[in-house]
């Protein structure tokens, strides 16, 4: 038996023994996600058990080095862990912007001190992060951000406003883009800085969305003092860090459809629509839509797997995450349109026990942001056109 086969067998056995049955069922609401942080609460005992076992094994982030609380696994082993988790429908034990966004940027650009300070807290779920990128009036033109950081001794003094800051009201720390040189060209005067959300002068205000939720906030900085040692990478070269992080963010968002996967769409639809005497979904047009969707979903899963393998083989195009982000988010919107269609009138209920507080329509509305956040679909297509296809710039 090869080492990898042995590893797969051990992984399977460990997951079988350690993943509580409750954590193998599809998530039904936001509360099923554990985000970690100073004020983190588990929504159930199995959620706590599952998180702690995975944390102790280093598998909240299997591929990070063990010195930071990761599993120290290589790409092949990480893939096996993912596959075996997927095979039993195991939930992610910890969902965190620290893992999916900040961590990769710190690993590449952070100082030793910064890595030692922040990465272990991320893998252990002790600190919850938010992202201070977008600003009012900037939107997709991210680099036109105006939040200023002025030098004052060993500190920067930060003033400005961010918007669409996901979960800023729950976050402990922020990774933030600030303008450190207002005279430089727009991409050249930006720095990437980390600070505590309890710092004096930081305030947040949730933004109510069409889904009735407020996952996003407005975030205000009023003379916030931050030590200069909290800058990641080179001062005024924060755009490099930002871009690198965005690739990871886009990869994460493109995978959002998969995370929600529970029962196959065809089965969900059969539950509410019913089937004919030959076992086919009663609504032939819907059946066709679902089958076409599932074909595209399976193809995207193959593409995501291939993207990882290409990266490992050193053949990946750095802008490919934009392609995946575009396709993954458009597909996720399609999934939720079909879910609404399959649910019919039942999927329209907004506030009732039966509808779990309108979980389905709220999730449907939430997906409409997928093709806007982390760079709009149009921005992604522009990146592919220019950076991959090398089409002439306007």
């Amino acid at each position, binding site marked *: 038996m090869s080492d990898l086969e042995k590893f797969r067998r051990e992984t399977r056995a460990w997951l079988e023994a350690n993943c509580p049955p409750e954590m193998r069922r599809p998530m039904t609401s936001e509360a099923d996600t554990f985000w970690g942080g100073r004020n983190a609460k588990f929504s159930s005992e199995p959620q706590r058990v599952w998180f702690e076992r995975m944390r102790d094994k280093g598998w909240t982030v299997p591929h990070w080095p063990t010195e930071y609380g990761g599993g120290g696994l290589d790409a092949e082993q990480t893939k096996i862990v993912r596959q075996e988790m997927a095979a039993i429908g195991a939930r992610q034990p910890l969902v965190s912007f620290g893992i999916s966004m900040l961590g990769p940027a710190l690993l590449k650009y952070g100082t030793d001190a910064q890595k030692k300070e922040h990465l272990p807290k991320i893998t252990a779920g002790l600190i919850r992060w938010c992202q201070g990128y977008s600003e009012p009036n900037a939107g997709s033109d991210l680099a036109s951000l105006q939040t200023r950081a002025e030098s004052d001794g060993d500190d920067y003094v930060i003033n400005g406003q961010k918007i669409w800051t996901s979960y800023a009201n729950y976050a402990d720390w922020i990774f933030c883009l600030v303008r450190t040189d207002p005279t430089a060209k727009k991409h050249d005067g930006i720095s990437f800085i980390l600070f505590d959300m309890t710092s004096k002068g930081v305030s947040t205000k949730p933004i109510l969305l069409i889904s009735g939720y407020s996952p996003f906030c407005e975030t205000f900085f009023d003379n916030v003092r931050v030590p200069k040692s909290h800058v990641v990478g080179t001062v005024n070269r924060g755009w490099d860090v930002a871009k690198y992080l965005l690739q990871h963010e886009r990869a994460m968002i493109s995978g959002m459809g998969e995370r929600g996967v529970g029962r*196959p769409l*065809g*089965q969900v*639809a*059969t539950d509410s629509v019913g*089937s004919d005497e030959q*076992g*086919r*979904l009663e609504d032939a047009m819907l*059946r*066709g839509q*679902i*089958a*076409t969707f*599932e*074909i*595209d979903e*399976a*193809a*995207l899963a*193959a*593409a995501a*797997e*291939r993207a990882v*393998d*290409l990266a*490992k*083989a050193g*053949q990946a195009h750095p802008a*490919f995450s934009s*392609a995946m982000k*575009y*396709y993954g988010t458009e597909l996720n919107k399609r999934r939720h349109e079909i879910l609404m269609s399959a649910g019919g009138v039942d999927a329209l209920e907004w506030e009732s026990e039966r509808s779990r507080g309108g979980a389905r329509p709220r999730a449907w509305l939430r997906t409409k942001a997928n093709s806007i956040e982390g760079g709009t679909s*149009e921005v*992604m*297509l*522009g990146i*592919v*056109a*220019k950076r*991959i*296809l*090398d*089409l*002439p*710039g*306007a």
Partner: protein
Amino acid sequence: MALVLNEEQSMLRDSARGLISDKAPVSHLRQLRDAKDATGFSRELWKAFAEMGFSGLLVPENFGGSGLGCVEAGIVMEEIGRTLMPSPFLSTAVLAASALSRGGSDAQKSQYLPKISDGSLLAALAIDEGAKHRPLQTRLQAVRSGNGFRLSGDKAFVVDGHVADLLIVAARSAGKAGEREGLTLFLVDPKTKGIATERTAMVDSHNAARIVFDNVEVNADGVLGEVDQGHGLLDGVLNIGRGAVASEMVGLSEEVFGRTVTYLKERKQFGKLIGEFQALQHRAAQLYIEIEITRAAVLKALQTLDGDFANAAAAVAVAKARAGATATQAVQEGVQMHGGMGMTDQFDIGFFMKRARVCQELFGDANFHADQLARMKSY
């Protein structure tokens, strides 16, 4: 297994691409078409294919082949798709070689496989009877007679049927149209009395034939696999063929797309390169993404055929459906973005459009495979 080609596979791709782009660019197909060539492909080139070992890719080593897998066959098919080279690779090296090595007796394998491998025998698979691909609807009758059978009925869309030295024919030996049970595969010499073959000139200038069987006698030793139980064998062989055709469509899509992007960078209108227009940039980017996702799905299917054959049907359905839809989009955008030029016969792009249409129909179009997938998933 990683979803990328390994070193040996990359080398195979390079050598296939070298030979095909050198000896059989699109102009090769154009010449054969214009000359109304009776064979429809170059036998000389097929000999070169055999010398390179391509014709025996899927033939086991003990029968003179190289015993490689579906990924390797897909690599050659993709290169064929780039230049639309007409060749019996699909009919003989992929379909017949698979059918014989998977279902043949030792005697049948010894008789045919070495000849497939050395390029001296051409074979064709005769499945479809109606306008659409519906293998279970096979009606061609196989009636027991003496120690063998008599075949009666019609086959259409038999790829390379007009030049084949051996036909592999799906027939109904029991049951009725629509049933899985009762199908049998037969090895038939096309020169047998009662067979009438008509070459059908198709839109893409590739080869296919209509074949009429009128009380054609076949001995018991002409049965490939088991009597009445041919469906499993046929379905497996068709899945290999579907994976191969999906690969051809990936090659075709990528070639058309490459030509289109080049054109976007050269052609000026309204005082600008047309590739500067965002409307076209976004459509080009969308198409690129579709092709990349399809490429991954097709490689996944081919790897599954090699690694987990019994469970490959869903991955194959995904690959064939995706490839058909993507190729359709690629050729449509190709013609549209080339404008009026794309509509002329003088320009190559129309050849790709025609071939894509044929590949879409071959072994089930996107709708057929979506329906298959829904059935597999019980809805």
